[in-house]
């Protein structure tokens, strides 16, 4: 405090004043320094060495120290320092390794006083002792620091850093004997000038070179260092081990660092690459610079506070050949531009919201988030001791916890897994889903399902209009035996059953392979059911012959698709054509209608053929007494939209699927597609791949169903010649050999080919399945433990 008062008087006498101003130099500056009374500044560079007077309105060139016709390299300065005790005394560090002192009191034009050429490499830094007039310290690229007594011709002591390149040397402000040196290898050393043999202390401050260091002017123990690693670090040197107490991350390598006078926590930095600005940091707030000076057009090379007790004036020199005086009040304050609000979601769905107090006070009573349960100020701080310019910054942080139950998405996952969307009668589906919802404590949803069931079906009227349509078509057939009914059912979309029926088919095929008995069998059956299909059969028979007599036409067809294949949908449809040669035109119509709806309905009828017969016979009369289902459609449509808008797209889509044809036409395709997409996206985020796949399969939008057909192409190479097989899956065009041979029966596989991804052996699906039932090893004998799931 005592010192402080002295300062004010000192300040009072010299009465510094000025404004932001600049002047052009003739050449890029490398370093600047001010004299003690803050009235003059010296600028040094490769081609410049001048003294400017600092006047109220402008810089005035006072003296050009660069004299002589052909100035030597001694004038090429890397650094300059004005003595803080003796105002006629300057020292420069030359790029050729010379340390030069200058005496402004000399009468001659050449003010050069002493020349020390002891360093072998570029001298990076010179530093006068803050209180001792004749003591000068230098640090050089050759790894040595030298201490000169200006009364003598040569250095009095040499300190060896034992490493390449001293980048900065600084006498401590408080400890008479101590100085700090920073090195290119990232180390900082502390020396006692009385002991040139060994450093007192060394620590690694940065990765990569430490370009600069600066002792805190007031606090004895603080040393700030700046490095190529873009960091400014403040070290507490009073403890045994140097302790990093603050760290500021800048955006470019730090070339200079200077503590701001009278401000304990402020320091100014500039960079030597890319970034031209000068930043003043409050080290306690390392994220945003406290103030920024953006005047320079090229990198700033030297910064210095004009007076050692005045925090308002900063001088800077730059490679763009200008010298600036910056007024602190003209600085840009990045904080003002910073966003005063922050919002972030936590892992568990909590929401944190931080805001500047001034913004929130106006509407403190507002409840910012309708669903938020609690709001508590988390932390808020004021900094009364911060004297100036910081608007009292305080912010409030609110955390909105969502209560665990409402926020969990468990119900979503469970619902998705438990809902049954197809494969059962409509009423059962509704009942089941209602039960699921009830168990998950979602009564509204549950009720909705129940209502749906009541609206669209009642015990007496299980078959909805759509299915009636279907059946009536089927009904045109004079007779339906169980076989064809089954096929119809599977063909129309109940996936699980389709799989099964495929299996059955194949089994048949395989068993009956040698003679075309299956075909004939089929023929017979078909002829029984529908005589008109005879020609189709014949055509198929033709096809069958042209390739390979051994194999039945079903297999051909299968193989044809399975070469590339396996998109389920496409598969299914073609299967229908193939497996139900009896009714291709029906299928066409079915497709045009809704295969999936009719599928589920057809199930109802088909599972038990007898019932279906009864249905056909009685459905017509029973239908009329009830309200037509279409009566409810607008309401249901609104309800679906309501759920979708509420964010429960799951409900919307589930109901859409379950109701199928009953409601589908009421809602435009785009909306449906949108819902499907959202739901599928959600499912996939929860990694419910199976459910999502089922939804895709059951959807009726073209845009959705085709999702499953993307990237399902499988390219096969011939196992003999290793060329890609272009044409057919089982015979190679080039080497004329059958490529895919079943590992079990050693016949060519033309239909479904299943193979192990581990050892790539495989064969007929049926054979492999059977084989792996009895044995764990690969049928090819390769020793791989295959698995069939």
């Amino acid at each position, binding site marked *: 405090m005592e010192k402080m008062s002295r300062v004010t008087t000192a300040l009072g006498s010299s009465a510094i004043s000025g404004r932001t101003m600049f002047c052009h130099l003739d050449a890029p500056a490398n370093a600047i320094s001010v004299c003690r009374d803050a009235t003059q500044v010296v600028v040094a560079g490769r081609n410049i060495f001048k003294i400017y007077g600092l006047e109220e309105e402008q810089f005035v060139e006072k003296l050009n120290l660069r004299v002589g016709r052909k100035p*030597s390299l001694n004038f090429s300065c890397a650094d300059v320092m004005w003595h803080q005790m003796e105002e006629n005394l300057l020292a420069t560090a030359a790029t050729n390794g010379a340390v030069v002192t200058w005496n402004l009191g000399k009468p001659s034009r050449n003010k050069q006083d002493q020349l020390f050429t002891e360093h072998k*490499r*570029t001298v990076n830094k010179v530093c006068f002792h803050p209180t001792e007039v004749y003591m000068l310290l230098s640090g050089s690229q050759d790894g040595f620091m030298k201490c000169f007594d200006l009364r003598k011709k040569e250095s009095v002591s040499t300190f060896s850093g034992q490493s390449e390149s001293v980048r900065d040397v600084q006498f401590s402000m408080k400890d008479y004997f101590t100085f700090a040196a920073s090195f290119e290898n990232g180390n900082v050393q502390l020396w006692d000038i009385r002991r040139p043999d060994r450093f007192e202390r060394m620590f690694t401050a940065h990765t990569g070179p430490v370009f600069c260091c600066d002792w805190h002017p007031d606090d004895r123990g603080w040393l700030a260092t700046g490095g190529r690693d873009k960091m400014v670090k403040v070290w507490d040197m009073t403890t045994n081990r140097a302790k990093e107490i603050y760290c500021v991350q800048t955006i470019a390598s730090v070339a200079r660092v200077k503590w701001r006078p009278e401000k304990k926590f402020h320091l100014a930095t500039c960079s030597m*690459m890319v970034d031209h600005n000068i930043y003043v940091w409050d080290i306690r707030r390392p994220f945003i610079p406290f103030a920024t000076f953006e005047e320079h057009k090229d990198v700033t090379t030297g910064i210095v506070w004009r007076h050692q007790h005045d925090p308002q004036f900063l001088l800077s020199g730059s490679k763009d050949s200008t010298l600036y005086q910056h007024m602190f009040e003209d600085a840009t304050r990045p904080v003002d531009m910073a966003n005063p609000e922050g919002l972030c979601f936590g892992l568990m769905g909590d929401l944190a919201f931080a805001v500047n107090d001034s913004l929130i006070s106006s509407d403190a009573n507002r409840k910012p988030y309708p669903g938020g349960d609690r709001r508590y100020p988390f932390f808020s701080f004021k900094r009364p001791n911060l004297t100036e310019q910081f608007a009292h910054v305080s912010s409030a942080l609110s955390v909105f916890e969502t209560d665990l139950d409402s926020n969990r998405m468990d119900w979503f996952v469970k619902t998705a897994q438990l809902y049954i969307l197809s494969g059962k009668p409509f009423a059962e589906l509704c009942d089941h889903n209602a039960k699921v919802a009830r168990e998950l404590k979602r009564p509204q949803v549950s009720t909705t399902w129940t209502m749906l069931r009541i609206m669209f079906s009642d015990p007496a009227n299980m078959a909805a209009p759509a299915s009636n349509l279907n059946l009536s078509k089927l009904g045109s057939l004079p007779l339906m035996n169980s076989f064809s009914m089954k096929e119809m059912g599977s063909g129309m979309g109940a996936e699980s059953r389709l799989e099964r029926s495929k299996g059955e088919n194949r089994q048949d095929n395989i068993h009956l392979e040698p003679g075309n008995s299956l075909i004939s069998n089929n023929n017979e059956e078909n002829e029984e059911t529908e005589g008109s299909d005879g020609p189709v059969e014949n055509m198929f028979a033709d096809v069958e012959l042209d390739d390979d007599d051994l194999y039945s036409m079903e297999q051909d067809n299968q193989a044809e698709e399975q070469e590339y294949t396996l998109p389920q949908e496409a598969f299914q449809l073609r299967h229908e054509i193939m497996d139900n040669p009896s009714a291709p035109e029906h299928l066409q119509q079915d497709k045009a209608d809704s295969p999936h709806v009719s599928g589920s309905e057809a199930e109802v009828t088909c599972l038990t053929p007898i019932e279906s017969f009864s249905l056909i016979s009685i459905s017509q009369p029973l239908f009329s007494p009830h309200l037509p289902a279409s009566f409810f459609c607008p309401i249901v449509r609104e309800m679906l939209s309501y759920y979708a808008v509420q964010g429960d797209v799951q409900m919307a889509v589930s109901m859409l699927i379950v109701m199928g044809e009953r409601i589908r036409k009421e809602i435009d395709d785009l909306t449906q597609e949108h819902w499907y997409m959202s739901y599928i996206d959600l499912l996939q985020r929860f990694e419910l791949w199976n459910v999502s796949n089922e939804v895709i399969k059951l959807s009726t939008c073209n845009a959705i169903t085709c999702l499953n057909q993307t990237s399902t192409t499988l390219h096969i190479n011939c196992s003999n010649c290793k060329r890609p097989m272009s044409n057919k899956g089982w015979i190679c065009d080039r080497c004329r050999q059958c490529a895919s041979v079943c590992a079990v029966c050693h016949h060519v596989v033309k239909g479904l080919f299943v193979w192990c991804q581990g050892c790539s052996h495989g064969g007929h699906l049926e054979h492999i399945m059977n084989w792996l039932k009895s044995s764990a090893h690969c049928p090819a004998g390769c020793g791989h433990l295959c698995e069939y799931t």
Partner: protein
Amino acid sequence: MEVQDQNAVGRWDGLCSRDPGSRAEALETTCQEVMRKVEAIDPMTAMAPLSSGNPPNSDLNDILVHLLMLSKRCPFEDVRDRCVQLLQDIQDLGIRIPRPLGNGPSRFIPEKEILQVSKVDTRTQSIFEDAFAALGRLDNISLLMGFHPQYLDSFLRTQHYLLQMDGPLPLHYRHYIGIMAAARHQCSYLVNLHVNDFLQVGGDQKWLNGLKEAPQKLQQLGELNKILAHRPWLITKEHIERFLKAEEHSWSLAELIHAVVLLTHYHSLASFTFGCGIMPEINCDGGHTFRPPSLSQYCVCDIANGNGHANHHDDLLGNQEMCGEVEVLMKRMKQLQECRDDEEASQEEMATRFEREKTESMLVVTAEDEDCVPSRDISRHFEDTSYGYQDFSRRGEHVPTFRAQDYSWEDHGFSLVNRLYPDVGQMLDEKFQLAYNLTYNTMATHKDVDTSMLRRAIWNYIHCMFGIRYDDYDYGEINQLLDRSFKIYIKTMVCSPEKTTKRMYESFWRQFQHSEKVHVNLLLMEARMQAELLYALRAITRYMT
């Protein structure tokens, strides 16, 4: 299915594994495979036993050549042994097997002087294994650098990062840029190596027909490649601007940095390749032959690098003549160290010394063209073949001297590279430092010598040729320490490496060991790379400000 489905490359992969078990397994499958192939063509060769040097099945030939390479260069002993044995078996079956052309990885250095893959210390061994695992080969460059494992490690790491790891440029671009850069110096060795790599990462065969076939974006790079390789001081920020503002073909800064680093890397690597007389890889064109060794004709290279029976009469004579060389050099170094303080040259004197050294470097005539016929037509990879190195200080065009103090790698270059292409700055920094500071404190037969002065002289001499001046260096030292034949070698290697000859290599520092000459080569290579980089980075910095 099974093994057959994997292509040839896949099969070799297993051999790179560090795990002996999987190696043995891969080895076994390979052997079976090869034997099967051999048996398949057996009758044919039997019918035409002595046809030509070209057995009918070129596919098999490739495999045999690869086996030969493995038998010589694989760092794993088991693989080497098995391959030798396999080749022997095949030969016993009457199939002609290839043999390496020339002995050893270098034309200049006798094979017995170079590290044997079988006899290296554990550290080098592990570096070799890493390199082999990463690339499936151990190239001749790495073998030579194996003299200096510390450096090799850093070199391979950097190269691997530049070519294989995350970076702004796609993989095939990187190799293509490598090809471009190497082709600028007609370095068929590097071109061959990278043509293979380029194709392997899915590069378009068409591009190899010439720069014109490559995308517009890469074509732009041709100009930069040319200037950077021969007269880097002419790069201006306008060049850079042209890259970044080329509409749809424009480069991003990060890509440009990546490209610049790659270009400079391969320019300097080309210098090293020629400077050490690297032989073609065994499995590349010109690295092997199917012709049986006939007693009457030795391979020229064998004789040239002393691998044959020729005695080293001239060498011995030379040694006697020059026996004092090392001692003289050391004395001079000592003198310089001592005299420095007494006899301080005036500033003007210092300035003129740099100029003199610069002009003198002009007078160091690089050797007349000797025969160097590239095996692959590499000239198609670059345009403007007449553009070559021009002495920095020519009358007429005045280019200001580059002051090292104003733009140095440590302060400026590093920050820029690291900013735009993270981690690479760090790696290059490490590599430069390693190369610059590498010393064993030996000179020829003398131990405990401080060679820093010599190293600095070499480094600064190279930078001097590129017009980079250090204020704090007395260029008079160069004259004292580097004799004329050494200067010729340096200048040739740095400025027009394709003209380097064995004679040049032998005529400098005759008493020094080969490892020391390789060391010099490393120094030259890194200094050159840094010089080019500095110019390019300075231009980019100027563009950015």
